[in-house]
């Protein structure tokens, strides 16, 4: 390695920002807090750009050692960093989008009393996410993994005095934890088999592992367990239920964590572990199936939601499903491509939704919006761009990445037309519900109440007369992200992105194509057509014939109700898992073990001593003669004992 990049600075800068704001933020002025937060996250971004500049002169993969951590016989893990094309992409996404969202949050959270705490948590999240992305071994990555879960909990439950927010934070953390359990077991298996968690060592050991049923079943187990961890973090079936609830947090949090970065950690982890997955085809199939099913499932729920943020949440789950589908058919670079473009347009969508909510003074129900395009034109413009992107209309970013995934799903040796079909269906539904969101929010007549000053906690300082545009500090990030959504996909032109990531995914990439380029153009046309179809349907139902949706809903009756209630999955989990656990814990562990056994043992010991002494105390009657009587009796006992000893001795 010829250059020393000081990679460690990137996460540490974020940590410094978090520490300063966390410890001193309460005493600092709002301007000072803003300066600290923006400076440190901006510095991290600047360092990332510096890395880009120096990138071509590095020999890859570039590893940088920071400090010793664990050094015991048979195992070692260090604080060390790993840089290759994959981490570079992730690094840029995390720091870049993160920095933009920091700027946006200055405007969004300006009126919040816990302003400093928000930025402290946000910087803390950046620190952990950067650790996760730059780590060179699974253990350090796991620290970042856990840390982003913690930051997510803190930020979802930011307004913790609200019961629903606190519960949502808890739910996120606990469901994440279930996934982490799988991840940990995978790590244990890796340690047991390979004695190391270092990426370079593990992957080379896996490649050189002799083929055979034992090693394949081990790698399959590791792969599936890693996927379990990814399901928890990236909200796939069956551990996705926390993401919709996580919308309780402030909107910038939803944008950063639940759209652009944290939920993509699972995809990154699976992509990083591609060596393991490539030698365990069963695990890869599991990944693909879960991803595909989740994509379709979440999209169907998104159709019926009325809360603007919930629609976007289910959309995120669905798009993550796409990324896993890509990884599952071996097209890892396609998955990462979609991760990047998704960060752009989904981040933009969430920030735009935040702007909308800010404009209407806190209302999140789309049925009470409408006709906003004349009030908030810039927001409308940028959200329109994002909607076009996510629907997959060329030449915007989403088209390139989503089409890449669909093509690979069809043509890759691990793929099949079933995946492609479900993917296309999901694309149709995605386009439909996104344009539905757009039409319901921005077109038609304004259905909202006369907004009169009671916005939600972040901005209730100004009296609302009618919906108004957001300040520039919130609009500029929107515009930047809109530009990125417009042009960000062009790196996919001519497979440039895939070639860029080829050194990482290299020989494992399923690059052999089994169909001709004519098929490729045909399928591309199908996906565009499907997107346009979804747009047309939304236009019909929500713009021209606004009475139709209700009739359709009534026609479907109870099925529609089921979809609105998210297929009652949350209730199912509550009944099957949560309630027995809580009941068992209450009745067996708390009342049975803790109260009746442990507490009782201690209490009864005390009670017993008390009762015993209560009986014995009657000896102290104050009467001299009774004392003398006891002495006489006692002395008789002693005399008898002494005589017995004496006769024994003789």
């Amino acid at each position, binding site marked *: 390695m010829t250059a020393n990049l000081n990679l460690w600075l990137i996460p540490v800068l974020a940590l410094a920002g978090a520490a300063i704001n966390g410890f001193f933020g309460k005493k600092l002025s709002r301007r000072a807090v803003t300066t600290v937060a923006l400076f440190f996250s901006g510095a991290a971004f600047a360092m990332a750009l510096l890395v880009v500049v120096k990138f071509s002169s590095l020999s890859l993969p570039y590893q940088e050692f920071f400090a010793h951590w664990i050094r015991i016989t048979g195992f070692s893990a260090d604080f060390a960093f790993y840089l290759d094309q994959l981490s570079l992409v992730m690094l840029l996404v995390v720091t870049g989008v993160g920095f933009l969202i920091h700027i946006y949050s200055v405007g969004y959270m300006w009126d919040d009393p816990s302003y400093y705490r928000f930025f402290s948590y946000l910087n803390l999240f950046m620190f952990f996410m950067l650790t996760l992305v730059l780590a060179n071994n699974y253990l350090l990555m796991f620290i970042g993994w856990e840390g982003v879960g913690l930051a997510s909990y803190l930020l979802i439950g930011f307004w913790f005095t609200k019961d629903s927010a606190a519960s949502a934070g808890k739910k996120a953390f606990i469901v994440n934890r279930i996934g982490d359990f799988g991840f940990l077991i995978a790590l244990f298996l890796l340690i047991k088999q390979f004695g190391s968690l270092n990426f370079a060592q593990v992957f080379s050991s896996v490649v050189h592992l002799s083929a055979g049923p034992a090693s394949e079943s081990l790698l399959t187990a590791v792969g599936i367990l890693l996927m379990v961890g990814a399901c928890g973090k990236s909200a796939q079936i069956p551990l996705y239920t926390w993401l919709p609830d996580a919308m309780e947090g402030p909107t910038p949090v939803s944008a950063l964590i639940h759209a652009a970065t944290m939920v993509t950690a699972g995809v990154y982890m699976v992509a990083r572990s591609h060596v393991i997955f490539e030698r365990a085809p069963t695990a890869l199939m599991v990944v693909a199936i879960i991803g595909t099913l989740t994509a379709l499932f979440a999209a169907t729920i998104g159709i019926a939601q009325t809360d603007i943020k919930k629609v976007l949440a289910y959309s995120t789950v669905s798009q993550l499903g796409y990324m896993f589908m890509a990884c599952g058919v071996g097209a890892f670079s396609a998955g990462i491509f979609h991760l990047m473009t998704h960060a752009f347009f989904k981040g933009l969508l969430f920030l735009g939704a935040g702007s909308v909510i800010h404009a209407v003074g806190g209302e999140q129900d789309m049925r009470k919006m409408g006709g906003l395009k004349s009030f908030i034109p810039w927001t409308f413009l940028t959200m329109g761009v994002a909607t076009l992107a996510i629907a997959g209309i060329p030449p915007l970013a989403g088209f390139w990445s989503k089409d890449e995934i669909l093509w690979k799903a069809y043509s890759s040796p691990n793929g099949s037309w079933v995946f492609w079909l479900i993917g296309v269906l999901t694309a149709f539904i995605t386009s439909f519900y996104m344009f539905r969101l757009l039409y319901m929010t921005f077109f038609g007549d304004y259905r909202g109440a006369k907004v009169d000053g009671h916005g939600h906690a972040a901005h209730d300082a100004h009296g609302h007369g009618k919906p108004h545009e957001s300040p520039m500090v919130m609009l500029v990030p929107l515009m930047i992200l809109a530009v990125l959504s417009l042009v960000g996909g062009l790196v996919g032109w001519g497979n440039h992105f895939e070639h860029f990531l080829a050194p990482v995914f290299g020989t494992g990439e399923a690059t052999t194509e089994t169909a001709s380029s004519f098929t490729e153009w045909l399928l591309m046309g199908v996906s565009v057509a499907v997107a346009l179809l979804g747009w047309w349907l939304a236009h019909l139902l929500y713009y021209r014939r606004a009475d139709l949706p209700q009739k359709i809903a009534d026609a479907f009756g109870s099925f529609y109700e089921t979809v609105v209630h998210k297929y009652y999955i949350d209730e199912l989990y509550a009944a099957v898992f949560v309630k027995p656990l809580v009941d068992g814990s209450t009745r067996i562990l708390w009342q049975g073990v803790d109260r009746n056994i442990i507490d009782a043992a201690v209490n009864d010991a005390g009670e017993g001593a008390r009762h015993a002494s209560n009986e014995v105390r009657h000896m102290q009657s*104050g009467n001299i*003669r009774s004392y003398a009587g006891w002495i006489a009796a006692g002395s008789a006992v002693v005399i008898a004992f002494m005589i017995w000893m004496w006769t024994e001795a003789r």
Partner: protein
Amino acid sequence: MVPSYVPLSYYLLLSGFLFACGVVGFLIKRNIITIFMSIELMLNGVNLSFVAFAAHWQALAGQVFVFFVMVVAAAEAAVGLAIIIAVYRTRETLNVDQVNLLKL
């Protein structure tokens, strides 16, 4: 069959009997002065056994010890009777059953 000499055990039995009478007196008497006298009786019984053993083993130290016992008995009697007087002043009674405040 009573022997014609005095065996040691006779002295010891007498001593034991005096001691036992002292103890019984302590237990069943209610007048505090009488209880004190029972204590003196116990001490006397013990003195007798000391002297008897001294004679048996030809050890004069036994008799010297009796001397000391008597000194202690005298001191104890003096102080004890002083206490009795003090108690009588406050409690107006010589009944030991009524001096029972030191109880739990």
